[in-house]
């Protein structure tokens, strides 16, 4: 019985690997692969991206398929297809990486491009394509190849916490699944903070909003005390308004930062316009109540 179970597991893994490899055939759009596709699973991710592996694991990494392609002029394109545990994990890592880089482009799903690369996410996959150069020819090839990969992937919805902000006007959003994500997207918190369950960072006009969700109201309250202490200890910030569970700071460059606790959530809003902060924190409070 044990042997049969092992056989079925191995067969499933083999079929699954075959299924995964179909995303990257031997040639695409005139670009030819050299060597076979490589799959890294679990801890093997450290061999591929070492210092970058931890954040993938925080979201929930399953495996990655990689392959390099060359054209007649020896230009190369490297493709990485990250299979994450679920679509929330895939959206999370994609949103985190694109929070500070690239520009949104017209594509079949959410996609960003920059000098010599294209990034997109669909279903439980995050896909990265990068070229050896950033010429228009390579950039066009990235998009053509990206579209061929995209059409083989089933779509899936975004995390619930992300959907709560659908009506809000923001330019970028990052979905966070742990503290490493918080350190990655915000310079505001650079110290030891309590472990967050999930969170959101939003770029808004003239500022930024960070929403951290804890596993209980008590932990959110403890985090509120901790975060306000970090800001006070920075020396460049002054408290200019303080009510229960809400403090407004002003730094020496006349920028404002409001930290407030709302049930399991901490909301941190920074902007140079004090009224904007009041307006946005109120709106976010309303959206979180839903």
């Amino acid at each position: 019985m044990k042997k049969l179970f092992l056989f079925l597991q191995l067969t499933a893994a083999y079929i699954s690997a075959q299924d995964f490899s179909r995303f990257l055939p031997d040639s695409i759009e005139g670009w030819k692969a050299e060597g076979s596709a490589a799959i890294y699973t679990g801890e093997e991710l450290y061999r591929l991206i070492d210092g970058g592996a931890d954040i993938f694991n925080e979201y929930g990494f399953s495996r990655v398929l990689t392959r390099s392609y060359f054209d007649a002029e020896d230009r190369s394109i490297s493709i990485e297809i990250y299979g994450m545990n679920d679509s929330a994990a895939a959206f999370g890592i994609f949103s985190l990486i694109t929070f500070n880089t690239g520009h949104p482009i017209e594509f079949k799903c959410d996609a960003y491009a920059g000098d010599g690369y294209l990034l997109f996410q669909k279903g439980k996959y995050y896909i990265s394509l990068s070229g050896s150069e950033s010429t228009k020819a390579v950039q066009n090839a990235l998009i053509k190849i990206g579209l061929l990969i995209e059409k083989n992937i089933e779509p899936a919805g975004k995390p619930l916490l992300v959907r709560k902000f659908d009506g809000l006007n923001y330019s970028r959003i990052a979905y966070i699944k742990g503290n490493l994500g918080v350190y990655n997207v915000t310079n505001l918190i650079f110290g030891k903070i309590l472990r967050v369950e999930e969170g959101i960072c939003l770029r808004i006009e003239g500022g930024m909003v960070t929403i951290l969700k804890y596993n209980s109201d008590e932990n959110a309250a403890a985090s509120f005390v901790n975060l306000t202490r970090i800001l006070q200890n920075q020396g460049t910030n002054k408290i200019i308004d303080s009510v229960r569970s809400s403090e407004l700071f002003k730094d020496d460059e006349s920028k404002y930062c409001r930290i407030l606790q709302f049930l399991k959530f901490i909301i941190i809003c920074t902007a140079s316009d004090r009224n904007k902060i009041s307006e946005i924190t109120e709106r976010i409070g309303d959206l979180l109540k839903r």
Partner: protein
Amino acid sequence: MTSKKNHSSLNSSTQSRRSFLKAGALITGTIIAGNFSGSLSKAADFINDESIDISVVKGDDYYRNTIKAVDALGGMNRFISKGSTAGLLINSRYNKPGTYVKPEIAIAALTMLLDAGVKKIISLERVAQSYWQLSPFSKKHMEKIKEIKQAEENFEEVSIKGAVALKKAEVIKEFLECDAYINIPIFKEHEGIRKTGNLKNLMGLTSYSTNRFFHFGSNASDWYSDPAFLSQCIADVNLIKKPSLCICDATEYIVTNGPFGPGEVVKSREIVAGVDRVAVDAYGAQILGYKPNDILPIKMAAQHGMGEIDLKKVKIKEIAA
């Protein structure tokens, strides 16, 4: 595979000629930092090129500019003896634009080493074949690339004399055994410590358990929640052995999403070379828009006395491409 050995003596193994030249350079640099920079700078150039602490070459031909940068410091023969075993530490792990050392720069270093008559060249950190394929330029130099031997992933435990946080570390055996090593990092943004360069590049030579100690040795809850401890470990591991030369890629580098990218790429098109890893990293910090003292590993390495963090005391020469 590990064995205990104290390698604290490795730091004193630098050539006496070089120490003498370095001392001379520091004196010159200190004077230049004063009000007489114009005339004394010319005088220093007249004495010899080896008085330069950092050479910078800006332009599009990364291969030639690397050679120019090293020549400006006195040429590769100044740093590596004929018949010696040379280690190369190339930051080659990632493949997104602005995240890896341009293969042209590594090939230039390789060419100079071969011309200098070294007996053996070892890549201290594994360099994949796919790295060389990132540039069509590599194809013409495959014969040279084949000369590079890959270090085995055998680690040796060493005690680190003078360390504050990292008292012992497991490092690649060939790193300890090579006669000299050339550090070839890329300056780029790095999560947790803001910027990577020569000092951080040494983490490519330590075992996974040692790297975990860098991150969690202070009982930190997260990989980057104790940047001060991590930075101290980085400074400490650099006590094991000095590089003979640092050749740094500041041609195209990411300023967001480091170290793996992709991120926003800035193209400065600069090759930076020097012997003093602290000074060279301080220069790199400035390129990325930081004050050298704001980058903790640089500050802590300077506190160890590994080099000069104050760029006013460093003689930097920009060379026309």
